[in-house]
């Protein structure tokens, strides 16, 4: 294989990884920007989405993949609504309590996942098996599916946040929550909507990676760590920042893993985060609060 082909192929794989990362990062940043909840349980919603897809696809109804992912996104949205009502709404405005509760939720969902789903790793059959030849490149179709789906979802979210009324309300709350409330914005309702959207995006990311990787109950922890990495790189509360952060992390990780090894990739990522937090805590696109 030519080196340029090899490189192009890896660029595409890095891009699909970035797509997943952006879906997670955008959710984390949305939830933090609007409600100041550091949602450490965010990765668990991805895990739930992946498992729901697996169950709808393989164990329960043998639904087609697309329908199963829609159903899984809906189920996770319902779960996130319950979580918001029971845990985060009563604790609104208490920083320490919400962070601890989010960490507790992470522990709860992960351990409940082990209890209900078992420790056996699951895999979802690929909806698009095979590869596409593109010039001299050989590309797996499922990776392309991830890139396309992530791109459409992020575009949809950007349009939503920019042009719709609830989206505008979200930006208003992010800028100044009390002023927004005085102008008649239903802060609790919009917060609830933001929380559900963030968690649902994570669930969809879970559905997208279910055919690519093994599905297991502890997959959420590493995901949420990546999510916070992205958000710190891009700036907490900024959607554009999350997109750029996701691209940086996805490419950096893919290529360091390709040329060196994955532990070193993680060490470099962690060092970069500490560096960013120390030098510019607001990240690339964030603004001081």
């Amino acid at each position, binding site marked *: 294989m030519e080196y340029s082909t090899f490189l192009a192929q890896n660029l595409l794989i890095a891009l699909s990884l970035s797509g997943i990362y952006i879906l997670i990062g955008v959710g984390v940043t949305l939830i*933090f920007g609007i409600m*100041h909840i*550091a949602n450490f349980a965010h990765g668990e919603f991805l895990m739930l989405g992946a498992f729901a897809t697996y169950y709808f696809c393989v164990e329960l109804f043998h639904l087609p993949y697309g329908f199963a992912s829609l159903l899984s996104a809906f189920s996770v949205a319902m779960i996130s609504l319950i979580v918001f009502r029971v*845990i985060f709404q*009563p*604790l609104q405005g*208490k*920083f*320490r*309590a919400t*962070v*601890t*509760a989010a*960490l*507790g*939720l992470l*522990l*709860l969902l*992960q*351990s*409940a996942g*082990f*209890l209900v789903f078992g420790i056996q790793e699951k895999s979802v059959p690929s909806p698009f098996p095979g590869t596409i030849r593109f010039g001299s490149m050989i590309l797996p179709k499922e990776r392309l599916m991830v890139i396309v789906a992530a791109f459409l979802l992020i575009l949809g979210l950007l349009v939503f946040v920019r042009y719709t009324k609830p989206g505008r309300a979200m930006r208003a709350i992010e800028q100044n929550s009390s002023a927004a409330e005085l102008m008649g914005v239903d802060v609790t309702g919009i917060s609830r909507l933001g929380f559900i959207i963030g968690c649902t995006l994570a669930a969809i990311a879970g559905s997208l990676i279910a055919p690519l990787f093994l599905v297991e109950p502890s997959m959420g*922890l590493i995901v949420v*760590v990546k999510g*916070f990495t992205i958000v*710190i790189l891009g700036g*907490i509360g900024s959607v554009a920042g999350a997109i750029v952060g996701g691209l940086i992390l996805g490419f950096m990780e893919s290529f360091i893993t390709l040329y060196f090894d994955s*532990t*070193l990739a*993680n*060490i470099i990522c*962690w*060092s970069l*985060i*500490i560096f960013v*937090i*120390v030098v510019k*805590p607001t990240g690339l696109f964030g603004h001081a609060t």
Partner: protein
Amino acid sequence: MQHRRKFLIPAIVLGIVFILPILVHKNGYFLHLITIVTINVILAVSLRLVLLTGHFNLGHAAFAGIGAYTSAILATKLGFPFIVDLLAAGVFASVIACLLGFAILRLRGIYFALATFTFASLTRLVIIYWDSLTGGPAGIRDIPFPNLFGFEVVTRLGLAYLGLFLAAACLSIIYLIENSRIGKTFKAISQAPDLGESVGVNVTGYNILAFAVASFFAGIAGGYYSHYITYISADRFEVFMSVFILIYNIVGGEASILGPIVGTIFMTLLNEPFRGYTQYEMVFFSISLMVCILLLPDGLISIPRRIFPYMIRFVKACGVH
């Protein structure tokens, strides 16, 4: 008289705690439990110093890990005596904390939490990656038992007592710090850092002091842990351990030093019925954590204050009839 009564209850509690290992000395498992709870209490109470300054530290276990590895390496590779190991573990952990503190202690809230969380993950990875020094993923084996002035402490009873004495010493020092002028400054800069700065308090200096002292005790706890278990690996100091230490503080309550002590004992004993059913253990742990946070925002130590009015009413109601 007043003075004597003030010390009566702590003295009784302390007495019970120190008799406890003898009462259960036939059961090795209970002695192990006592020692582990003691080490966790030192960790939780030392974290309290950082929490007092208003910083939400999500990586405290990293300093326990640094302490444990320092003392393990000094003991196995250089053959240092136990006391020197233990002090070196604390000192090294607090040196690292000072260096880190200079960089990150001006951050607050979520930024500080994430920075410490990242630091803890980084520490764990470095321990795994640097295998010529730390043994990599396999960890360090055959760490000698504590050796005090020529007596090697090898029985579980002895180790439990050594742990209790260590905890008593650490807790007393932390208690004295908290109630001194320094501790009051910690609380003050947590409430109004800018005001403190403007009246001439060296806010950064006090923040670093709190962080370094807390890490010193975390390092000592980690050092004792490595000598007690005699085998350590990076997995023992994973991210969840920091989370647990934090949870003990929040569940117990942040109002007094009793909070983390009560929180640690309560959350550890709560899991005992589930011993052997690890998967149920964590589900139960996290549910009880949630219930505590939602129903008792001021922690377990606020229970007496909460039920006191009802008790008075009950007593009065009984008295009328």
